[in-house]
């Protein structure tokens, strides 16, 4: 027995000496493909579009990326947990509509609206999660239903409350200045205007990455998405984890919704449709598997960055606007293919 323990100790020590080098471990991370895509797309537009080289252009691109990226980070967590959320795009608008209308029509103070919207957004997330675990349907179907219902509710309730299909201008109301400073202010950095949304985006990406890799909850998210039955068998509360993840998406929708409200003062009730796919696309480009159990929050942030660079890059490069969507699609395809190729190479190399 003693002899065995000793040999184990020496083997463990020897193993530690031979530990895999850092760069090899980095190459194995799910977001490495997206990082490669970022470099590729950035280099491409840096060469092709001189205006893209300005610092202020980077700020614009990052802003575009952050508005997609904040929900995309949460959606990445959800996808790693094995579920979809198609309602996220309109849920952002639901949140800003609720905040705006509750404040303008009922209380007169924006902060009550902000809180109501938070409760509502978390409730939408919880409802998605509850319906999922209750009906045992695929989350694609469940959230497709809530997506359609929210889309209808956004317009119907806005019309009921305001008589119009857009909300009133909230600038100048009680609580607007503080709200704007928190959710939608700009600051100057190296002579460029930078939106605070970019800062939040980076913070959320870092927190989500930390949670995924360094907390018990992160472990559980991977397990729940990777093999739900196994997770249940080792005592992980699978249903609660899933409902919690939907509520995290709800929170991110609220946050984005508040930014949109305070940045643009009014809300069109028909907005937000289609963005849910961009969130999912960002997460997938960032390394998340559509089947769950694998992925990265940081990668999802990089995915949103790729999308931001592509859409803005086409404008900076001054390409024919009629071809706009084609260029965006082609660049995304290129980035995604490159991303997949790099990931496969990285995995096979470091084996």
């Amino acid at each position, binding site marked *: 027995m003693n002899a065995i323990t000793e040999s*184990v100790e020496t083997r463990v020590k020897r193993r530690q000496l031979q530990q895999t080098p850092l760069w090899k471990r980095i190459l194995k991370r799910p977001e490495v493909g997206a990082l490669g895509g970022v470099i590729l797309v950035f280099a491409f537009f840096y060469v092709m579009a001189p205006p893209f080289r300005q610092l202020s252009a980077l700020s614009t691109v990052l802003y575009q990326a952050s508005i997609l990226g904040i929900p995309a980070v949460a959606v990445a967590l959800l996808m790693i947990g094995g579920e979809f959320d198609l309602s996220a795009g309109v849920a952002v608008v639901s949140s800003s509509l609720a905040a705006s209308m509750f404040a303008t029509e009922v209380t007169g103070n924006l902060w009550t609206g902000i809180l109501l919207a938070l409760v509502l957004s978390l409730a939408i997330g919880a409802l998605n999660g509850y319906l999922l675990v209750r009906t045992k349907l695929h989350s694609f179907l469940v959230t497709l239903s809530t997506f359609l219902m929210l889309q209808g509710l956004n317009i119907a309730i806005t019309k009921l409350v305001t008589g119009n299909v857009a909300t009133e201008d909230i600038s100048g109301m009680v609580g607007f200045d503080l709200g704007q400073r928190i959710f939608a202010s700009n600051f100057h950095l190296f002579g460029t205007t930078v939106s605070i949304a970019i800062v939040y985006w980076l913070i959320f990406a870092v927190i989500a990455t930390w949670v995924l890799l360094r907390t018990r909850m992160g472990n559980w998210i991977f397990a729940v998405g990777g093999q739900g039955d*196994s997770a249940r068998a080792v*005592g992980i509360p699978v249903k609660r984890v899933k409902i919690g993840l939907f509520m995290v998406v709800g929170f991110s929708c609220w946050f984005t919704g508040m930014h949109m409200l305070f940045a643009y003062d009014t809300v069109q009730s028909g907005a937000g449709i289609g963005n849910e796919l961009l969130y999912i696309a960002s997460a997938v480009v960032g390394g998340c598997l559509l089947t769950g159990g694998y992925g990265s929050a940081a990668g999802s942030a990089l995915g949103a960055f790729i999308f931001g660079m592509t859409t803005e890059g086409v404008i900076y490069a001054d390409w024919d606007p009629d071809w706009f969507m084609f260029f965006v699609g082609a660049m995304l395809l290129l980035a995604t293919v490159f991303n997949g190729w790099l990931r496969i190479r990285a995995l096979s190399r470091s084996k």
Partner: protein
Amino acid sequence: MTSTNTPIIQLSNVGKSYGNISALRDVSLTVRQGEVTCILGDNGAGKSTLISIIAGLISHDQGTYAVDGAPMHFTSPRQALDLGISAVYQTLALVPLLSVWRNFYLGSEIRKGSGIFKRLDVKTMQQTAEREVERMGINIPDLEQPVGTLSGGQRQVVAIARAVHFGARVLILDEPTAALGVTQSGLVLRYIATAAREQGIGVIFITHNPHHAYMVGDHFMVLSRGEVELDTPRADLSLEDLMFHMAGGAGLNALQHELHRGEPTTAGQAA
């Protein structure tokens, strides 16, 4: 190192019925420290009902089930687990895309820090998992590697080692070798023997492969249609006997006799 005669689990005349259908009748079984008890039987023989009762998934309705001498009626697997009775099912409760050490600690993570900064103690978990894996004698080059990339036998061993590490005194192994080839089965069987002899764990080994059972078993029980067909220690049994019983025993003998009228048959051929 261990005394081989302390009973941990004792079942006396245990039975379970669903309405009029009785799934299990009159089963008596003793699991002792450091002993491997093999339970064999055809599909539908009552093996899974039996291990479900032992693991606390379902409750028996006849006879007594005692752990350390105290009669028990489990209502959840958690209660069985708390007494050190741990089951490793064929699905293994592993997550293929997660790394070996994360799987090892899944659901029982070690954490440090407090409040919102409570986080995984990655270093401790990695080192402990590494030590346990080394102790089992399987060679996993990188603990960060996903469990899904391990061989079937290695995965079994990781799952068993995990149960042992988290305080199993009785291990219920549900057909651990069923889906494995010869080499991989050998790996698992070697580990079963080690776990029992060196760590003094009582093992309940469910299988329908009499060869595998005979290699590691100390005690054998063959179930057939919910009843005990054979219950005997290793000393009183040859592999041929076991194979004969496993293959259907007297019933099969009669069947063969019927199919090949007049041809003489032996137990050995029947298997």
